[in-house]
């Protein structure tokens, strides 16, 4: 059975994280899924250890420039801090560039709403907080990653073939361009629109587009003075969708 209206846990199940729910019908928009995860973390203590473990294993699939841009435009101050905690817990080196654009919350408080609502639990949360959670202003206990809660690469790639290109690109600007073209209709309108959405330099975007066009991952069409862009799904993903 496949979930057609995907909740956050359906989406993570599709990506290969062990949540006891049906997987979403298609591979989610990974960067938006991370923003939604950070938003939901205060109400679900299982998200942080499981998603941090997934990111530790498959974090190269995350288009870092796009995540930075979306965090800036679509996430609240609290969500940005929670995202910081998630990425630092997963792999601070890999996500250094994204982390630079995020900021902790003040005043500091428990990450989990249940603990924040009670003075005694709040005090306990502060005492037991990990160093990373203190830095982000959201106290939570140190996280034990759960490798056995993540499906192996053969499964993840089989059900999410679009992640393969992203991982090959190690989540660089090309991965961000592909993801934006797949998920954000306005990105297809022009190079300038794409540049605006991703907050990248004109030169960086041009280089990424040139590379993606050469490798036939995207198609350009000319409409008057504008160049429209389109990124067909890779063949394996088209087969899955069918």
């Amino acid at each position, binding site marked *: 059975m496949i979930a057609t209206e995907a909740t956050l846990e359906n989406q993570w199940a599709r990506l290969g994280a062990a*949540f006891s729910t049906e997987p979403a019908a298609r591979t989610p928009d990974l960067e938006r899924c991370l923003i939604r995860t950070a938003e939901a973390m205060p109400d679900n203590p*299982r998200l942080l250890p499981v998603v941090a473990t997934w990111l530790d294993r498959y974090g190269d699939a995350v288009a870092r420039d796009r995540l930075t841009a979306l965090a800036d435009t679509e996430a609240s101050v609290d969500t940005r801090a929670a995202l910081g905690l998630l990425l630092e817990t997963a792999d601070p080196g890999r996500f250094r560039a994204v982390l630079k654009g995020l900021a902790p919350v003040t005043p500091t408080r428990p990450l*989990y709403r249940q603990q924040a609502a009670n003075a005694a639990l709040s005090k306990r949360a502060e005492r037991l907080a990990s160093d990373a959670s203190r830095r982000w202003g959201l106290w939570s206990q140190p996280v034990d990653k759960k490798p056995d809660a993540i499906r192996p690469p053969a499964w993840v790639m089989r059900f999410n073939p679009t992640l393969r290109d992203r991982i090959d690109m190690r989540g660089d600007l090309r991965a961000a361009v592909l993801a934006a073209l797949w998920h954000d209709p306005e990105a297809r309108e022009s190079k300038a629109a794409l540049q605006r959405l991703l907050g990248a330099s004109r030169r960086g975007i041009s280089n990424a587009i040139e590379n993606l066009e050469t490798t036939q991952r995207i198609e350009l069409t000319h409409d008057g003075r504008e160049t429209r862009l389109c990124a067909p799904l890779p063949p394996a993903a088209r087969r899955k969708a069918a």
Partner: protein
Amino acid sequence: MNSHMNSTTVQQALELLGEHFRWPEPVEITLVGGAAGMLIGTLPPERTTSDCDVVRHLPEDAGFGLITAAATVAEIMGLDERWLNSDVTNVVPTMPDGWRDRRHRLGYFGEHLIVFAADRVDLIALKFLAGRDQDLDDLEALAVTGEDTETARHYLEQLAATDYDAEKLTAARELIDAWETKP
């Protein structure tokens, strides 16, 4: 690998365990943790667990037979090889007084395996002892009462008489104190 189990998967794994377990006489195992909570219906069905924590198997020399059968089940169902986990015995040297009388008999699985699940009140005491962020979430789902916290306190006193880590006991007491301030 299908590493996280819900109540249906746990049930299937135990049925297969019973089928593949070979022992000349009946053997009892008692589950604690998330698996026990799901099977006795005190934790929500959407809850998952990565393993089935076993606190006791009797007779004790049946352990090897269980491990062998569990490895076969792991292979068949694609579970983590440590899905039937008795490490919890190292973490929790003793269960709350009276746990044996309170446990729930889930029945025979196969010819010789009898499975029990610890009672809600014992699961709560163990959750207070563990005290991780996700345990607090489970405690909320378990709708802890004053009687439950009393049992948990008694359990901590019981552990204090052993060589159990004093710091962990203090942390658990603090958690119970904090919990009792909840409206």
